C-alpha cells in the first residue's frame, strides 16, 4: 500500500525545517511543533498530542536512519486549517510498510509504537518508503 510521496490535496505554507541527528534534536523538533501548533490555534491536549507525534517521528529517524529532518508547516484543505508534519530521511527504508504501520510491529528495540502510535494520534497519515533510499512520513492534524 504505497501512498504518494507528496500529496497534493493539502497545501502548506511557511515550512520550518528541523534537522534531526541526535536525541536533543527530538526535543527541539517537538518544542517547535508545539509552538507552531499553538500559533495555528490548537489548544490543550491537541498540543500535547501533536508534540508527542513529532517526538515519535523524530525518534524513528534517530533510531533507524541516524539523521533526517522534520518539516513543520501550516496546512489548509478546503476551509480547514491544521498542522502538517513531514518526517523524512535517507535511511534504510522500510521493506514492509503495511506491516510497519500496524500495531505491535517493530523491527527496532521493542517499541512497537512508533508509526502505529503516530497514526492513532493524528488525523491524516501517509508513508512512502523505498528500501535503500529512505522514508517519508506525512501526518496532519486539523483544527477541531
Amino acid at each position, binding site marked *: 500500500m504505497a501512498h504518494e510521496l507528496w500529496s497534493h490535496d493539502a497545501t502548506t505554507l511557511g515550512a520550518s525545517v528541523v534537522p534531526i541527528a541526535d*536525541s*536533543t534534536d*527530538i*526535543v527541539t523538533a*517537538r*518544542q517547535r511543533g*508545539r509552538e507552531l501548533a499553538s500559533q495555528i490555534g490548537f489548544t*490543550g*491536549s491537541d*498540543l*500535547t*498530542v501533536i*508534540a*508527542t507525534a513529532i*517526538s*515519535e517521528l523524530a*525518534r524513528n529517524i534517530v533510531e533507524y536512519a541516524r539523521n533526517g529532518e522534520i518539516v513543520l508547516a501550516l496546512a489548509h484543505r478546503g476551509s480547514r486549517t491544521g498542522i502538517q508534519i513531514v518526517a523524512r530521511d535517507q535511511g534504510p527504508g522500510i521493506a514492509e510498510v503495511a506491516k510497519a504501520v500496524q*500495531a505491535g510491529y517493530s523491527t527496532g528495540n521493542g*517499541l512497537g*509504537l*512508533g508509526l*502505529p*502510535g503516530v497514526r*492513532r*494520534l493524528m488525523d491524516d497519515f501517509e508513508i512512502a518508503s523505498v528500501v535503500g533510499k529512505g522514508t517519508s512520513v506525512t501526518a496532519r492534524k486539523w483544527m477541531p
Partner: protein
Amino acid sequence: MRVPILKQGGYLIASIQSALSDEDLLQLRDDLVQQVGKYRSRGAIVDVTVLDVMDSFAVRTLRAIAHMIRLRGAETVIVGIQPEVAFAMVQLGLTLGDVATALDLEEGLAFLGRNPKTGPPHGP
C-alpha cells in the same frame, strides 16, 4: 540538564525542572538507582509535573527506573502526570504497567508513608 535529586527522610525526590533529552532521562535513571543505595532510601518519587510530552522513550525509561529501584529493594512513585499527557499516552498505547503513580508530590509522599514496605518517612 541534570535532574536534581533531594533526600527527604528515607525517600529520594527527583523533581524534573524542564524538558529532558534521552541522555538526561538515562542520567536520572543511573543517579536514582545509585543514590537509593548510597542513602539507603526506601522510596523514590519522580515528579514529572513540568513534562508536557511523555513519549515512548520517556515512559519506557520511567518504567525501567521503577523496576531497577524495586530490584534494589525500594519503591518508586511517579507523580504529576498532566491530564493532556495522560490523554496522549492512552492514545499512543503507552502504559506504566505496575509502576505506582500519584496525583502530586504530596500524594506521592502519603503513598510511600502508608506502604508497609516503605513505611513512615523517618523510620523506626
